[in-house]
């Protein structure tokens, strides 16, 4: 069977939601102990546009100008509360955070190095070894605590303690605190979030936390109420068009009218995705033509294929074939809930409205089960089987 990813590394980067930390990097950097600046890599032409045109300062932000201005006001007041950024993927949370750090500390915040850090934690009767990749400059440390799995609590406690000890010296009105950027706080365990709230208060004099997550529902109220919440909404389509036109101008490209709008429409309001598919189009064919196909992502096409398979035939044999394809997707690191959502989206397109309610109910039901359970394939497959049974029942009832 052909794998779903034939077309090179660029596509791979599109919306691969794991490993948030490394995503903000140019793809070429080696991981361990490399000292390099985040942005001016040797030849900017080799960088992805997403990184190349990432706004560096709060003034240059194109999409969330109002949020950026507010953040700027916040840091000019010599003091900064803990912050919690939340919003859907590709809306610009990370960009805002990086710009904010630069605003606070100047260019020093951009000299980052990647480190694989080890901690030995004494937990009563045994010691726990933890390893985690961090991204740090002299002023801030960025990490992804949920990578530590169920031991994330120790990471949260240890690193903040460590940072509080290595407090930068307060010279000439420079700020006497470090900033800790925590990604994906919504994936932290409940215990970790609870110990976070205590640590936030205890060490608030020497470090500030910037938390970043997709959905603030999964962050406990106690943590949320200690932070200033900043909602970053997905950019509107016309805003995406504006950004694409800006990039086109900088790259010296001729954009046929309506071309940017079509990309924006396909992007599902994710700016990152829009820019990546814009670049893909550039690679595929230039000059752009008006009827150029904006290819969807490979895995999406693949899910569409699966949905078509399911609609065509509802039988155990077909279920078995679909399982193979689902495995293919999972093996390629597409998160199961993303697959399920996309599958639902594709199926809903083809259904009568009376069936839609039922199908979306079961999608929600199995996604919840998937969260409680261990192995995702069971639940996706259960959903497919359920759908087949509903659909077949419907066909028999209607056509006999």
């Amino acid at each position, binding site marked *: 069977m052909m794998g779903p990813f034939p077309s090179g590394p660029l596509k791979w980067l599109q919306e691969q939601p794991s490993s948030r930390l490394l995503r903000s990097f140019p793809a070429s950097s080696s991981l361990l102990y490399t000292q390099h600046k985040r942005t001016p890599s040797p030849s900017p032409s080799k960088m992805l546009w997403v990184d190349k045109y990432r706004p560096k300062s709060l003034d240059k932000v194109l999409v969330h100008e109002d949020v950026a201005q507010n953040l700027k*006001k916040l840091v000019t007041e010599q003091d900064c509360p803990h912050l919690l950024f939340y919003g*859907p993927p590709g809306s610009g949370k990370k960009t805002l955070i990086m710009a904010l750090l630069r605003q606070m500390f100047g260019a020093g915040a951009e000299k980052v190095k990647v480190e694989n850090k080890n901690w030995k934690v004494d937990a009563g009767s045994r010691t726990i070894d933890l390893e985690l990749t961090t991204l740090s400059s002299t002023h801030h440390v960025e990490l992804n605590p949920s990578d530590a799995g169920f031991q994330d609590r120790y990471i949260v406690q240890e690193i903040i303690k460590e940072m509080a000890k290595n407090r930068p010296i307060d010279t000439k009105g420079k700020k006497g605190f470090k900033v800790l950027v925590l990604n994906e706080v919504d994936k932290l365990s409940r215990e970790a979030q609870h110990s976070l709230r205590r640590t936030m208060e205890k060490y608030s004099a020497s470090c500030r936390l910037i938390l970043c997550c997709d959905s603030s*529902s*999964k962050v406990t109220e106690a943590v949320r109420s200690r932070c200033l919440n900043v909602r970053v909404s997905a950019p509107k389509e016309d805003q995406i068009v504006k950004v694409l036109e800006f990039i086109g101008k900088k790259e010296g490209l001729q954009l046929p009218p309506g071309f940017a709008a079509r990309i924006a429409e396909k992007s599902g309001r994710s700016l990152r995705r829009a820019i990546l598919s814009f670049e893909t189009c550039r690679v595929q064919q230039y000059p752009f033509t008006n009827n150029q196909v904006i290819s969807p992502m490979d895995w999406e096409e693949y899910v569409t294929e699966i949905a078509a398979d399911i609609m065509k035939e509802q039988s155990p044999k077909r279920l078995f074939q679909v399982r193979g394809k689902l495995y293919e997707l999972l093996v390629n690191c597409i998160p199961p809930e993303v697959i399920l959502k996309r599958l639902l989206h594709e199926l*809903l397109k083809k259904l009568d409205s009376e069936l*839609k309610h039922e199908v*979306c109910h079961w999608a929600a039901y199995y996604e919840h089960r998937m969260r409680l359970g261990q192995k995702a394939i069971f639940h996706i497959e259960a959903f497919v089987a359920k759908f087949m*049974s509903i659909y077949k029942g419907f066909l028999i009832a209607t056509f006999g």
Partner: protein
Amino acid sequence: MAPLLQSSQPWVEKYRPRRVKDVAHQDEVIRVLTNTLETTNCPHMLFYGPPGTGKTTTALAIAHQLYGPELYKSRVLELNASDDRGINVVRTKIKNFAAVAVGSGHQGGYPCPPYKIIILDEADSMTEDAQNALRRTMETYSKVTRFFFICNYISRIIEPLASRCAKFRFKPLSEEIMSTRVLHICHEEGLNLDSEALSTLSSISQGDLRRAITFLQGAARLFGSSISSKDLISVSGVVPQEVVQALVAACKSGSFDSANKQVNNVIAEGYPVSQMLCQLFDLVVESDDVSDEQKARICKKLAESDKCLVDGADEYLQLLDSCSCMIKAFSNMPEGFSNEI
């Protein structure tokens, strides 16, 4: 460690009342406690009530007024939920502290009664074992130690403990009291708050003064000295009412696709779905053109979705499921599905 910058101190701490008689709106408790200050006689206390009504403030204030800054450290033990309060701590730390006898005598104008105070904040999160271990300790050392329990839900305090204490319920703050407090802070901080923003603030904080002050400070930091009600809403994370109404209207129209579109919009705008469910609940329960049966069906579904969200389920799917249930309830379609297994 260098002292905190003055401006980074949360206003909640800065404007915490220091004396018992400054605590707003809790007359009954205050009468008893002012009496205590005069006679230096004090029972075990149990304060309960919703968050942000002044329970911790009252307990801290009475302790400070009894002992003054010098003796406070040696006479008062404060433990809250983020400290370890397992049964071991009760058996060792609390017991050791409770056992020490202290003398009385006026010092520097403070009454300094001959007993110590142990404040157990958020006592409802203590395990039942730990609470049981306290029973005998409370009685044995009642001559030299008084316990102050503070909790949100009195039902989670075991009966033997509750019966040993004088219970005081803290009422949610009324709108006028809240407004006067907020206006006082605005005056001190030089903020401009119009009357519309003031009423928004009291409605989104729902009687919780701490939340109101936190929102106010957040808004002041972001938007400067003149704050509108829109600013407050954006800081508080409350979903604007128009968005909720649009979603309900889409559900009432009976079209699955338009509801789906609204749900997509809510997710893209990044509104927290748990908050959305709360506001949907409020809107549905208060609306007049929905029958009781429909309300019941919708509320049941909202509760289920909320539980799923707590378990970490996907926001989009849960909201879509709730909306689909609302569509069916509004158009009186039968509950459940044809081929349920």
